[in-house]
């Protein structure tokens, strides 16, 4: 049982401050959908509007095509998993999981049965009698999920539930969350500022900035074809090259920058004209050191400043002739021992792997 969630022109204001502004999004039943954005961008406000803790100032929230205005959180077919999990410390694990059934007056025997089922789902069989403080971080996480699923909600809302976990656990929980979602087959709406989480788990993501949605789409589309410079720099890393449009040939655009001309690919939704101020983006992993026989659309001269070793890749920081700083990554499998600070290199990148957008605000690191 899953439900569509539709936000129609939703705005939430606090005084004169817009926490969310004219948000339009339709989330399909059974979808894993993420809102991705920096802290304070309004994504938690949207989640509270869907769960019923905050009615929108304008617009409407529809769940299963039903307007939810004025319906409290305890009457909506949604369950929310809080950032701090908000497990009840005075209750046992089973009591926590069966809380939603207890308040609905379901008999103790049925409650216990359902709690046992859910404990099996989250691989914590036989641990129902433990107190919450006796669980590890990952186990608490799973209990919170089980508790939210106990009433069989049509929509599960998750407010950065993995942010308190360490890296390894977080990576494992991503896979587990995705598996649980497939098993129970309900709509998951996930809030995060971590683009890695959003990209690995979601069917589609919405990137938010300052209360507004910048782009909605499948993960690879958002990553490969960003619609705004904010999305280009917030989702993953990107090197911006500022300049002016010199030539347009269908979707291939030549941009003139202080470091030379580069060929880039234009998004069909963001038309540019000759002479417009624009930014060409190229990702660190799309920059290559050419080998014999390689023939790239674009060539770029860099002066290596420093590098760092990350394990699977090596990151290099370099300057262009104009002083612009760029970053590029080389897989560790390639021998780069000859490159050190002060080395001058010629890099290449394909125009298809570069996108060009009208000049606008970037995401601040």
């Amino acid at each position, binding site marked *: 049982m899953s439900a569509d969630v539709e936000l129609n022109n939703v705005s939430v204001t606090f005084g004169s401050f817009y926490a969310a502004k004219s948000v339009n999004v339709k989330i399909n039943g059974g979808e894993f959908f993420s809102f991705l954005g920096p802290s304070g961008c309004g994504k938690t406000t949207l989640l509270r509007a869907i*769960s*019923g*803790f905050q009615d929108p100032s304008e617009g409407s929230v529809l769940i299963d095509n039903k307007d939810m205005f004025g319906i*409290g*959180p*305890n*009457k909506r077919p*949604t*369950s*929310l998993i*809080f950032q*701090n999990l*908000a*497990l*009840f410390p*005075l209750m046992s694990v089973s009591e926590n999981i069966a*809380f*939603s059934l*207890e*308040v*609905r007056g379901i008999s103790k025997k049925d409650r216990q049965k359902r709690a046992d089922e859910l404990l099996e789902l989250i691989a914590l069989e036989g641990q129902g009698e433990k*107190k919450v*403080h*006796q669980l*590890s971080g990952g186990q608490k996480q799973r209990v919170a999920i089980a*508790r*939210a699923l*106990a*009433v069989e909600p049509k929509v599960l809302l998750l407010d950065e539930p993995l942010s308190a976990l360490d890296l390894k656990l977080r990576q494992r929980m991503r896979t587990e969350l995705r598996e649980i979602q497939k098993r129970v087959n309900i709509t998951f709406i996930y809030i995060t500022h971590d683009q890695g989480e959003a990209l690995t788990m979601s069917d589609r993501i919405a990137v938010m900035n300052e209360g507004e949605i910048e782009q909605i789409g499948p993960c690879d589309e958002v990553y490969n074809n960003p619609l705004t410079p904010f999305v280009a720099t917030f989702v993953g890393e990107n090197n911006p090259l500022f300049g002016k449009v010199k030539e347009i040939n269908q979707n291939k655009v030549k941009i003139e920058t202080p470091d030379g001309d580069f060929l880039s690919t234009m998004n069909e939704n963001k038309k540019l004209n000759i002479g417009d101020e624009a930014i060409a983006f190229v990702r660190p992993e799309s920059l290559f050191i050419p080998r014999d026989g390689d023939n790239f659309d674009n060539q770029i001269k860099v002066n290596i400043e420093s590098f760092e070793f990350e394990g699977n890749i090596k990151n290099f920081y370099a300057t262009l002739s104009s002083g612009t700083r760029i970053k590029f990554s080389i897989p560790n499998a390639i021998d780069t021992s000859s490159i050190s600070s002060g080395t001058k290199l010629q890099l290449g990148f394909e125009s298809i792997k570069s996108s060009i957008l009208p000049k606008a605000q970037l995401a601040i690191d």
Partner: protein
Amino acid sequence: MKPTYFINFMMGMYIFIFFAYLFGPLIVMSITAFNSAEFPSISPWECFSFRWFNEGKIAYDGQHLAGLLSDWRLHDGIISSLIIGAGVVSLSVPIGMAAAIVLTQVRSQLRDIYYSISIMPVLFPGVIIGISTVVLWDRIAGLGGDGFISDVGRNGIFLTILAQTCFISTYCFLIFVARLQRFDQTQEEAALDLGATQTQVFFKILVPYLMPAIASAAVIAFLFSFENYNTTVFSILSDQTLTTVIASKVRLGISPALSALALTIIALTIIAAVTYEILRRRSEKKYAQSQEIFVKEKAASGRINKEYKVGFKVPKGIVAILLVLVFATYGATQIVKNDLYGQSCIDAADQEKKSKFLEQLQTLESNELTEEELSGGSLGGTEDYGDIFGDPSLFQDFGGFD
């Protein structure tokens, strides 16, 4: 002498003086409860006796000095105090809790004002609260003629419960505020989100969380009510509580029965405190054990030190306990050696007092005053001073008032 020794010595002295100051009077008072003399004293020591805990004594001159068990006014007072205490607990705990919950709901500036008003009753003198309660209820009682309202409005116990609740609920309020400040409000939201109604959230989430605060607020409210005097003395009207009974007794002359009462209260308090502490430690130990099991489950077995054993630890209070034992033994041997206990000692003491009393009576009788002595005698008679005002030269230099 090394400076650290000196500092330690001074610290020890300070602590000794501080505790002597705190507990000295209580210890002296407790000892006087066991002296059979009519006036609470340690020296002269008459006899070791439990009479002030029991029936008291009938003095050689026929005066009845009641002991703890035979003093019906004290018993009535204790019963009223217990009733008032229960009433105050059942009113001020819910009032304090409600006020504290309201405080979490109001915002910003209003919050400070609300807080200031809420704690104000603590700052009022208890006398004023007592008097104002009586004045208000006297008006209310006067409204309806004879009847229920008139009876209630002039009932001392009812008025005392109301008057004490005025300021005791504020202490409860402060206890609840402290606990609520640490409450994670997302728990309420989580419960709501899981389908609980506001009432269910209150009873299933908030009340269980507040349980320790409810317990300590109830204890504090009861203790404050039980020992209150300055509000009670006005609002109690014609009834009596323990404190007003004691106060009126002190006015007539202090008796060792009060020492006996004090010792009983101290003993009950210590027993309650020790029981609480034992229970607390037991539950803490249980928690620590469960945590230990948890850690052992989680940690790799190689990291657990299997050889770890708890060594024998000397309890830190042992010195104090030994000291008390030594003094008690010394006191007991002295009492036994000098035969300062039991009925024979008391009889002997009474006999001695009686004979002294008779002696004094005889002396008085033999020195019966003459008519002349009663009218002033050789020193105090009127004739010596009679003509002070008769002296014509006395005021001769006085120029008059104008």
